[in-house]
């Protein structure tokens, strides 16, 4: 029994999603209209930290068209927002007695439409007593001002690499050995404090949620622009004392998420509450400027990275001592995000590691997962400092990297924090990149340009990422939906049904926001069954349709849900083989599936189509005796390990020393995500990822003033990368499959971001190194580059 098919795995199949999206026919939350809808608008705090003395809602309530104004008085009984890793202060659904970041929701107005609601929100009078705010992470650790006036400390915890999961891992503390190495004569110690600045995730579709509670059915229907519809259903059920099967959540088209929609939010609970109270559907759509206050932010680390190594490039220790800004409240994974960084703390290098990171509350918006979530930060530090180490010892940055790589024959390799990396071939991957770009030629070009007075820089970064989080025991660490009342691990789910007409329906538990699952999964099933991609419809994001689902985040979907679907398709194939064997009077082992049907090995002329097979399946009197009718199977896949993709990126930039302006001349990436289901979709993920990394490197920064006011809450002052700012990316690949799933695939959704920010920074620093510059903190806006040059020139 074998399968062959043309359009399946590895094929460049055009995205089934695109015709609707390109033609403006995609249906997002705002396209779904219900009779009798009311609109919610929030009253938000102008202060970063203040006591609330009183809230006067009378004027607002009296306005024509206003249905209700709710404050914490009304919603307190629902409890705080649920969080998976509930360390630190949890967020009340509406501020209760005090506000802890600017823009925190203080009251919710529900009115006939959003315009009236906004007018009424402006009429809600809140009497605040401003309190001092702590904004800077470094101030937060001093504890002179508390972000939460009643808390003992701003410091929540410190993660240590040698002791990150006590009781589960017994790890060696590398600190004494590194301290000893520092005393050696043949050793240099290179150290740099660096900021990995806070970012504001900007999806093209802001968050939006519509809730319709029906007391007759005892059910609530919710449409939300979410990456995690099942988790949201669980959280609503738990908050309102319902069961999850009475909460129907649909994530329709989701216009980008990047981790920011991997959170359950207070507004999602509050529109359900209002719908229940008012017996009307209630909608809230985030405005663009509001998004900077109502949606989580990302990154926000400051830390000192240190490499201790010999003068000939052997690294004897890598240390990071950092602080991570959690913002005012812990939400979904907040304090666990640095742990994802810790997973890849040492990058591709088999070196002693001593990493510690302290998580603090500040009076700023909460941080949580943003594309890469901890991993871009971690890779940034190790890849920046290794470049500085290379410069300090006068060695080529590619050679230093190679010298310290985990070697091919060391895989599966164990990291310093006790985790097993599935597969890797780092040197081959980097060599592929260096050959693709003619690295030596590039360096010569750089030298020639320097002789002409031009400031060209070449930046390199390698990375290892971890994604498709597994194994299942991680649920006990918080990587599951237990807090939402759904005790699960991050397993995958897929249902494959061959319909009576021979087409196939595939229902998966993911929550994509542009990743092309409808195409990729069709390819996976097509590969197993030989049903053409066009005859396979993939649906997702509906909690009533797919009984289990975890969502889409952490580059997990293909490697986990994809594998589940692969296994479900395999079950269907086994059953179909029995049916065909009966139809063709052959033995099941001899059945081959190809070109939209099946035949007996050796007689390809005599084929039965999938429609014919399906008919037999759904008319059991035509099938083999005793075989269950129907032709579908469901599989849940829980991998034994995460997958560990990797890659090498290189940028060539030119700096105008007169203005500090940076121009990217080339960007080349060679990524390795194992087998690629659809190379075009893989490339698309890498393109978007690189653009986001470049955005962090050059443009983006959430800037708060000392009182905690966000100065960059509008896109006028939060510049995002556009196609015009970027060169045409040159992408290559290597293929090192994993054995943790049957398809040998690894995630690729975040790789581009994880590999890119430091590639750009390394290139810019390389360009201006002749002027004496050794480091510039992101974003490398022209002013910062120019300032650094001025400072270096003295």
């Amino acid at each position: 029994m074998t399968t062959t098919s043309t359009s399946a795995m590895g094929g460049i199949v055009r995205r089934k999603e695109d015709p609707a999206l390109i033609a403006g026919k995609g249906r997002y939350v705002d396209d779904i209209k219900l009779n009798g809808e009311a609109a919610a608008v929030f009253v938000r705090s102008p202060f970063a930290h203040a006591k609330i003395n009183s809230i006067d809602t009378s004027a607002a309530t009296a306005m024509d068209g206003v249905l209700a104004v709710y404050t914490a008085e009304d919603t307190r009984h629902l409890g705080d927002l649920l969080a998976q890793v509930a360390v630190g202060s949890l967020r009340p659904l509406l501020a209760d007695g005090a506000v802890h970041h600017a823009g925190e929701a203080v009251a919710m107005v529900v009115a006939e439409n959003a315009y009236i609601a906004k007018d009424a929100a402006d009429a809600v009078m809140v009497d605040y007593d401003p309190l001092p705010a702590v904004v800077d992470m470094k101030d937060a650790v001093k504890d002179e001002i508390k972000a939460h006036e009643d808390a003992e400390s701003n410091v929540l915890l410190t993660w240590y690499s040698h002791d990150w999961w006590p009781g589960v891992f017994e790890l060696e503390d590398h600190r004494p050995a590194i301290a000893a190495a520092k005393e050696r004569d043949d050793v240099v110690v290179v150290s740099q404090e660096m900021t990995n600045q806070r970012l504001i995730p900007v999806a093209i579709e802001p968050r939006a949620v519509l809730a319709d509670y029906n007391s007759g059915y005892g059910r609530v229907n919710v449409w939300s622009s979410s990456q995690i519809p099942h988790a949201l259903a669980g959280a609503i059920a738990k908050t309102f004392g319902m069961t999850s099967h009475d909460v129907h959540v649909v994530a329709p088209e989701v216009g980008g998420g990047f981790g920011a929609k991997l959170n359950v939010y207070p507004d999602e609970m509050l529109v359900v509450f209002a719908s229940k109270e008012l017996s009307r559907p209630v909608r809230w759509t985030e405005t663009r400027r509001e998004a900077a206050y109502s949606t989580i932010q990302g990154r926000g680390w400051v830390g000192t990275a240190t490499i201790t190594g010999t003068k000939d490039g052997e690294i004897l220790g890598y240390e990071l001592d950092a602080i991570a800004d959690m913002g005012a409240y812990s939400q979904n994974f907040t304090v666990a995000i640095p742990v994802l960084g810790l997973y890849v703390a040492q990058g591709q290098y088999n070196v002693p590691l001593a990493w510690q990171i302290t998580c603090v509350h500040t009076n700023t918006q909460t941080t949580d997962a943003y594309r890469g979530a901890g991993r871009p930060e971690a890779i940034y530090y190790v890849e920046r400092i290794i470049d500085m180490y290379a410069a300090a010892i006068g060695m080529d940055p590619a050679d230093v990297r190679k010298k310290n790589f985990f070697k091919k024959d060391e895989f599966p390799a164990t990291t310093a924090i006790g985790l097993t990396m599935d597969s890797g071939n780092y040197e081959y991957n980097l060599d592929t990149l260096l050959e693709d770009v003619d690295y030596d030629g590039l360096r010569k070009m750089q030298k020639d340009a320097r002789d002409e007075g031009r400031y060209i820089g070449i930046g390199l970064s390698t990375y290892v990422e971890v994604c498709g989080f597994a194994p299942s025991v991680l649920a006990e660490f918080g990587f599951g939906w237990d807090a939402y009342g759904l005790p699960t691990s991050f397993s995958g789910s897929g249902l494959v049904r061959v319909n009576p007409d021979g087409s196939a329906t595939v229902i998966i538990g993911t929550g994509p926001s542009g990743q092309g699952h409808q195409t990729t999964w069709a390819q996976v099933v097509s590969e197993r069954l030989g049903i053409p991609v066009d005859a396979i419809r993939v649906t997702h994001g509906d909690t009533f349709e797919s009984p289990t689902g975890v969502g889409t985040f952490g580059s997990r979907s293909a490697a986990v849900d994809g594998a589940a679907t692969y296994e479900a398709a395999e079950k269907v194939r086994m059953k179909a083989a029995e049916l065909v064997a009966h139809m063709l009077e052959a033995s099941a082992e001899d059945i081959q599936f190809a070109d939209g049907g099946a035949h007996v090995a050796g007689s390809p002329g005599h084929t039965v189509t999938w429609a014919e097979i399906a008919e037999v399946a759904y008319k059991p009197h035509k099938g083999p005796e005793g075989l269950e009718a129907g032709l579908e199977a469901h599989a849940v896949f829980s991998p034994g390990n995460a997958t560990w993709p990797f890659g090498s990126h290189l940028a060539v930039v030119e700096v105008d020393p007169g203005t500090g302006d940076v121009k990217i001349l080339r960007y080349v990436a060679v990524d390795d995500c194992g087998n690629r289901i659809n190379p075009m979709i893989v490339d698309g993920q890498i393109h978007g990822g690189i653009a986001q990394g470049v955005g962090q490197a050059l443009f983006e920064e959430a800037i708060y003033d000392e009182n905690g006011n966000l100065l960059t809450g509008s896109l006028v002052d939060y510049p995002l990368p556009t196609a015009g700012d970027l060169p045409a990316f040159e992408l290559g690949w290597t293929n090192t499959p994993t054995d943790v799933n049957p398809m040998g695939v690894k995630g690729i959704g975040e790789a581009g971001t994880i590999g890119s920010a430091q590639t750009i920074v390394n290139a810019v620093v390389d360009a201006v190194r002749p002027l004496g510059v050794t480091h510039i903190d992101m974003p490398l806006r022209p002013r910062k580059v120019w300032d650094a040059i001025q400072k270096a020139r003295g």
Partner: protein
Amino acid sequence: MYPRSFEYVAPSSLDEALAALNDHPGAKVMTGGMSLIPLMKLRLFSPPLVVDIGRVPGLDSIADGNGHIAIGALVRHAATASSDAVASGAAALAQAARLTGDVQVRNRGTTCGALAHADVAADQPAAALALGATMVARSAGGEREIAADDFFVDALTSALEPNEILVEVRVPKAGAGTGSAYDKLGRRGGRSDYAVAGAAAMVTMDGGSVSAARVALTGVGTKPTLATATADALVGTDGSADAIKAAAQHAAEGVTVLEDLYGSVEYKTHLAQVYAARALEAAIAAAG
């Protein structure tokens, strides 16, 4: 992004529009809406009445007249950018229009709207200033002309009265020996996005020496500003690279340079010099 409620009219004649403005204190003209609507959505600005002049006929042409080019109130950035008349007669304005915003903004926003909005970070105001343009303002009471030098009053404030419409901008046509240019550093680097700083220059060469020069700066103070010291220092020189460099050192003299998210006072002062020099160099090259 929900504006306060407001009235909206879209008159079909200029007189009706002027009457509406006259009769409704606080009313605002809208042309492209690229700057007005965002301010209203943020409730930073809540006019009781918006007078959309988009349907008024006769305001959307570029007239290549005697001695000047007249750009009507409804001429979009894209039209200014691609007009041969503007490119040859007032190159700095065409270049500034081409560097304004993105395609969508250039297809809706208007040159006159950008001038009336008087944003220090905008591109075309500095070009109009360097070119010595004249603004033609009409109200119910009649028409008056305002020299560019007097037009930009303060941050987001022009010399227009609330009941006046800028019906056209007249830009003197470059004669023989005169060239102009505009260049900027954008907030996303290169030339993209609003200007961190930039400069427009117009230079007239006569027998190998600079006989007249005007330089205007974008992005450094509260409003588009003439760099008179630079222009004065250049006149009479040979316009060589050294002369430009020496003159450009004075670019920010007499200008109150302000810090913002994109630059310190020191950096912006430096950029004023850099871009004054770059614009002058290109203008002199164009002067032929």
